[in-house]
């Protein structure tokens, strides 16, 4: 299996790395005592490390190449991953779904409040991811200012509650509606844009919203934000912090299931097909008689609706909002969730959200290396699984022959 060639290559790589890192890893000059330390041990470590890494790298690259060669030679047999096959097999996925359901329902009782809080955050990101998935994954419109709608939702609850005392349950649909309105507001000026240009404009839009919130003191109370936002009420009962966290967790679960249901239905609907056509080719999409402007606007507004609702949830969960929560970084995280999880794939986006939100949380012990690990993960994923963790397999249309069924 292991060829001499591969070992030779890995050895060469490790020698090269030992040479490259020699000045910083091996030599240490102590200017006070005028001694030069030679840390040969480091050199050995670098050598072994780079040898192993290059070996693994080569192995993975080779597997990837083999895979693409197979795909080229493959005769119409579409390779479906084990996971997707499991999804199609009722015997496998029904029990799995039940177990998963029981696990999600009993989660707050098994784990501590800390874990539940983290899970709520992850679920908010699931919702954000699914919303952005409509815009980026289905309609193919690269949106870097998605966090703006999240902010709109959060501030709409905070402000409506502050000024008018509106409760959570009224604010939730209002937040969603405001998100949709802002989505259309953003959509109009960018109707003619696409790709990089669109990304830049949406980026600007996201920043505009954040800067307005930061500087318009009379309206949004500036950087100090709004505190004491009430948690969602449960029939007028006074819930303890623990109790209301659990309650928020269940609301989030219901909202996520609702989101999954709606997004799933949208995907297979007429408008979903229009989005896919728009993503694939704009001119052809018009030639098919699809209203380009309307399709784009619905994508933006429906995507933004979920962000608005997620924003209301966020405000209710943290009981405090300020502009610092809605930076460009949030937009990028949500975009990473969509791309890493698998564009257009609902399960992929959920997996992506859980991975990207939960890993940093549980890697707190290595917090200094967190971003490093995060970056590496993204690079490696994009090279070896460009389709995402769970790539999208669209429902395929089947046509039976009308005249003679077994012609082909």
């Amino acid at each position, binding site marked *: 299996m292991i060829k001499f060639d591969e070992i030779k290559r890995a050895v060469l790589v490790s020698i090269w790395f030992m040479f490259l890192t020699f000045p910083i890893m091996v030599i240490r000059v102590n200017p006070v005592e005028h001694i030069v330390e030679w840390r040969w041990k480091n050199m050995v470590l670098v050598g072994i490390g780079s040898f192993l890494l290059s070996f693994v790298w080569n192995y993975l690259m080779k597997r990837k190449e083999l895979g693409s060669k197979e795909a080229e030679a493959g005769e119409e047999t579409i390779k479906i991953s084990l996971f997707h096959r499991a999804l199609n097999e009722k015997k496998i996925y029904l029990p799995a779904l039940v177990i998963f359901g029981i696990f999600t329902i009993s989660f707050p009782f098994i784990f501590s409040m800390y874990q539940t809080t983290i899970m709520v955050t992850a679920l908010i990101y699931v919702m954000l991811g699914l919303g952005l998935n409509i815009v980026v994954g289905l309609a193919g419109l690269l949106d870097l200012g998605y966090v703006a709608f999240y902010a709109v939702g959060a501030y709409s609850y905070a402000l409506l509650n502050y000024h008018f005392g509106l409760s959570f349950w009224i604010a939730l649909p209002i937040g969603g509606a405001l998100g949709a309105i802002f989505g259309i507001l953003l959509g109009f000026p960018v109707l003619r844009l696409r790709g990089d240009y669109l990304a830049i404009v949406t980026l600007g839009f996201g920043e505009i919203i954040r800067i307005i919130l930061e500087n318009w003191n009379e309206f949004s109370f500036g950087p100090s934000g709004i505190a004491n936002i009430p948690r969602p009420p449960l029939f007028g009962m006074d819930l303890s912090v623990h109790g209301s966290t659990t309650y928020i967790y269940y609301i989030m679960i219901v909202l996520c299931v609702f989101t999954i249901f709606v997004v799933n239905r949208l995907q297979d609907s007429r408008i979903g097909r*229009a989005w896919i056509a728009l993503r*694939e*080719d704009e001119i*052809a999409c*018009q*030639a098919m008689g699809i209203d380009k402007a309307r399709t784009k606007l619905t994508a933006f507004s429906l995507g933004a609706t979920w962000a608005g609702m997620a924003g209301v949830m966020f405000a209710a969960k943290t009981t405090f909002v300020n502009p610092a929560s809605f930076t460009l970084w949030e937009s990028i995280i949500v975009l990473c969730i969509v791309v890493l999880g698998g564009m257009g794939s609902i399960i992929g986006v959920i997996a992506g959200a859980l991975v990207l939100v939960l890993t940093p949380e549980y890697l707190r012990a290595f917090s200094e290396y967190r971003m490093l690990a995060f970056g590496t993960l993204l690079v490696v994923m994009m090279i070896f699984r460009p389709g995402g963790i769970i790539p999208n397999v669209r429902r*395929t249309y089947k046509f039976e022959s009308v005249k003679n069924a077994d012609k082909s």
Partner: protein
Amino acid sequence: MLKLKNVQTFYGNIQALKSVTIEIAEGEIVTLIGANGAGKTTTLMAVCGVVPPRSGEISFMGDPITGMEPDKIVSLGICQVPEGRRIFPYLSVAENLDMGAFLRNDKMEIKKDIEYVFDLFPILAERRHQAGGTLSGGEQQMLAISRALMAKPRLLLLDEPSLGLAPLIIKKIFEIIGKINAENNTTIFLVEQNANLALKVAARGYVIENGRITLTDSSKNLLANEEVKKAYLGL
């Protein structure tokens, strides 16, 4: 059926069409030939509403369609096969065809039409589950034409169906263009650089030069015309 009267279009300040007048009767195949940049595609784009004319009138079945949105124009029964095919690369052949029937709701009829285009181009039936982008150029052109047919157009606009294809495949595609016209009485407006082939399949032709229609006649006369021969047929 389709009438263009003194149509002028501009890209910014550049005038692409300088008073184009074209008339197409129902059931005809009419071709528009001309050199690169003469305004052939722009004429089609004007009809489709993608590049609306600045002045002049376009009417379809007697009703004005000047300045209408592209999707409304498609819903009237004008369907375009865009230049360079422009199929949906990541959708399967079947899904591409399904997209073509986007404005229709009659499922049974759609199925029948899919059968019909599979009869026209049997190779597409074989490749129905393959992604559009993996087809060869000729197959993609067949798919693009089939997709347009799925909209059940009364007027089919073809923009350079011979672009970048091998002569044998071009010949086959032109045969089928004639067949579509003969079998369904679909009016076809064919824009081509390959004047020789286009004039053979069409009944009448227009010659466009620098945004102006310079000549119009029956195909037979155009094929015999000395100037056309020199400029477009390379004889």
